[in-house]
């Protein structure tokens, strides 16, 4: 065996007093970390194959297992960290691009954690959501700027198509292929029960899930996988994917190994060939071209469905959003640089794009300044981790939020960031039938419903604390926010005052 120059990242610790050699860990680990040695009558491990997904730890009936970071350290260096050194060894050994999954894990500033929420005291009393009605229903789509009248003098009540959300939370795009069928089913059923929407991603829609169409957003991306008339007509809205927060400016490659029979049918491509989404839509080089795709979709669906345009948060996001708001789109979705992914080149994921907090604040302000904020609804994604992040996002100007990582957590994901390997021990980011069946949609969908209900309740609590009883009154209400430990420049971009002001 050739030397690979770096040690295992994790070390499996087994308490031999507790271990009963039941070999459950061995059966559960798709990475084949655990094995039984009959000669020594001992469970042993291949630590180098461990991704720290915590499956074995969770499943071990006697609690005998722990996984920790390998305490072995290269000589300390704040510049060339062990991570950077290891990555260079990997590349020197293979000549390949580093591939990672899930959101950017680096210690960039998280602005949500530097924003505080207001509450009422004495004047403008707070509201108890358990006693008083609180409105968290949201409509997404174009809003008319003024009343108009028909020829007979009656009020024109014809509105552009809208999405109606019982909670301001949707599940963001994850394709069938990147996640399993059971994961998709869980999302679809949860969205239906919650009165919100889940998103097919760019992998098409499995025939079994057409029944959830009224709660489905169907995506059209540069690869156009599975896009045809029935698909477009089934969804409640159509999302054009221009970019993704985890990998702005590049496309996607679902490796041929993941294109098994069912994924092949859904994407409408042959088994075993790579599914390549080119970096740009090769028919879109301008806002005018984007308008053309938007209207071709509207024409194909007879103007019955709102069209969402999803972009990654990049440096000039405000100007881009301004163009999109004039392009005929009904909803803009903006995905921040900490957003998750089933696979992205490490260097792109960790270095390209900007935080969603800053992108959202500048987009909302730009659209208001230009008097076109009502042309579109704004949905934000890219690491909304909790109900308080959601409240802050709405107060910064979002109409609704997209969540994906919290939804995966609800289904059991432990953020081992190995989705691209296709061996997800939790049955989420895999197409291996023996692994997929570990995720029970009956349980997972309920956990998703629980999560969103809990968030919704927390959102209502925080709104009530501010003396606000409708999400409409919170949207763009930046007076409810204060910064903590932020520079003047950051406060200016966020459009909020500092705590104490």
């Amino acid at each position, binding site marked *: 065996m050739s030397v690979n120059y770096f040690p295992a990242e994790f070390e499996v610790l087994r308490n031999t007093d507790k271990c009963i050699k039941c070999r459950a860990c061995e059966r559960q680990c798709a990475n084949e970390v655990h094995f039984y040695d009959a000669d020594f009558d001992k469970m042993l491990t291949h630590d180098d194959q461990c991704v720290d997904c915590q499956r074995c730890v969770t499943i071990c009936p006697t609690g005998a297992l722990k996984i920790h970071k390998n305490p072995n350290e290269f000589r300390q260096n704040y510049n060339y960290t062990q991570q950077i050194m290891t990555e260079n060894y*990997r590349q020197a050994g293979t000549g390949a691009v580093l591939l990672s999954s899930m959101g950017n894990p680096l210690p960039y500033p998280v602005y949500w954690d530097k924003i505080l929420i207001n509450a009422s005291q004495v004047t403008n009393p707070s509201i108890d959501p358990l006693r008083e009605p609180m409105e968290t229903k949201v409509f997404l789509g174009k809003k008319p700027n003024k009343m108009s009248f028909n020829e007979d003098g009656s009020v024109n009540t014809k509105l552009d198509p809208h999405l109606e959300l019982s909670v301001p939370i949707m599940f963001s795009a994850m394709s069938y292929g990147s996640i399993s069928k059971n994961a998709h089913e869980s999302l679809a059923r949860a969205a239906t029960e919650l009165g919100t929407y889940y998103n097919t991603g760019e992998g098409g829609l499995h025939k079994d899930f057409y029944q959830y169409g009224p709660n489905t957003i169907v995506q059209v991306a540069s690869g*156009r996988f599975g896009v045809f008339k029935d698909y477009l007509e089934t969804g409640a809205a159509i999302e054009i994917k221009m970019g993704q927060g985890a990998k702005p400016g590049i496309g996607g490659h679902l490796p041929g190994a993941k294109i098994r029979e069912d994924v092949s049918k859904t994407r409408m491509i042959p088994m075993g*060939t790579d599914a390549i989404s080119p970096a740009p839509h*090769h028919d879109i080089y301008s806002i005018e071209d984007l308008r053309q795709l938007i209207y*071709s979709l509207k*024409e194909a669906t007879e103007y019955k469905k709102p069209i969402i345009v999803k972009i990654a948060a990049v440096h000039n996001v405000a100007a881009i959003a301004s163009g999109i708001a004039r392009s005929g789109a009904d909803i803009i979705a903006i995905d921040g640089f900490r957003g998750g992914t089933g696979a992205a080149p490490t260097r792109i994921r960790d270095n390209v794009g900007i935080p969603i907090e800053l992108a959202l604040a500048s987009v909302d302000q730009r659209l208001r300044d230009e008097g076109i904020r009502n042309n579109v609804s704004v949905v934000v994604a890219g690491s909304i981790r909790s109900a308080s992040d959601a409240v802050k996002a709405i107060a910064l100007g979002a109409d609704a939020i997209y969540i994906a990582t919290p939804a995966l957590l609800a289904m059991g994901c432990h953020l081992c960031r190995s989705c691209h390997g296709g061996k997800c021990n939790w049955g989420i980011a895999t197409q291996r039938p023996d692994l997929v069946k570990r995720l029970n949609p009956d349980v997972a969908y309920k956990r998703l419903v629980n999560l969103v209900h809990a968030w919704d309740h927390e959102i209502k609590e925080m709104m009530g604390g501010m003396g606000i009883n409708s999400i409409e009154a919170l949207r763009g209400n930046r007076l409810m926010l204060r910064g903590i430990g932020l520079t003047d420049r950051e406060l200016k971009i966020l459009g909020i005052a500092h705590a104490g002001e």
Partner: protein
Amino acid sequence: MKINADGLHFQVLNEKVRSCPDEEIVLDNVLGQRYIGAGLCDKKVTINGVPGNALGAYLNNSRLEVFANAQDATGDTMNAGEIIIHGNCGDALGYGMRNGKIFVEGYAGYRAGIHMKQYQELKPVLVIGGVVGDFLGEYQAGGQIIVLGIGAEDKIPVGSFCGTGMHGGAIYLRTEHCPTDLPAQVCAADATPEDIEEIRADVTEFAKEFGYNAEELLSSHFYKLTPNTANPYRQLYVNN
């Protein structure tokens, strides 16, 4: 049914086409109206005049016949049916098309047949009578692109970057002059008699539509371009 498209906005015209109960529709005086036939099922539309961009996008088993030139994004994500153009065609022809046939009598612009794909019995066909611009068949994942180069027999009938990122399907070029700048993942070979059989039906149909002699066209020399792997990115990444 005949519809006079003169001065009609595309929304009005397309609504008339959609709501028309007749299977056969003739559009007269078309001038730049976009999205004609978007997602249209089971109709036969004759278009007299120049249609606008995105003609027949998501087309679902209809026949669109244009007696003029067509513009950009014709047949975008087409799923079934036929588009016949008695003239030339603009850029981004047949983007992401999955099935059906497009016949262009004259030349086509840049970025034709990008990301064409195929699946089981669905196999798209793009036949271009004249020459075609740069980026033909980029990212092609399936289907058949045939460039006949009629009237341009003395030169390469395609522009630069033909077949970049190609990982499925085939491109047939009727020429003695093979493109000189093909990317590494594309193999060019002289078409064999079996290959010619593969395209015989489509070339014959093209010849019938536009009044050419199919046998004469098929007896010329063809190059066949194919990808050398279905997994062009397999060696590109390492787990991190």
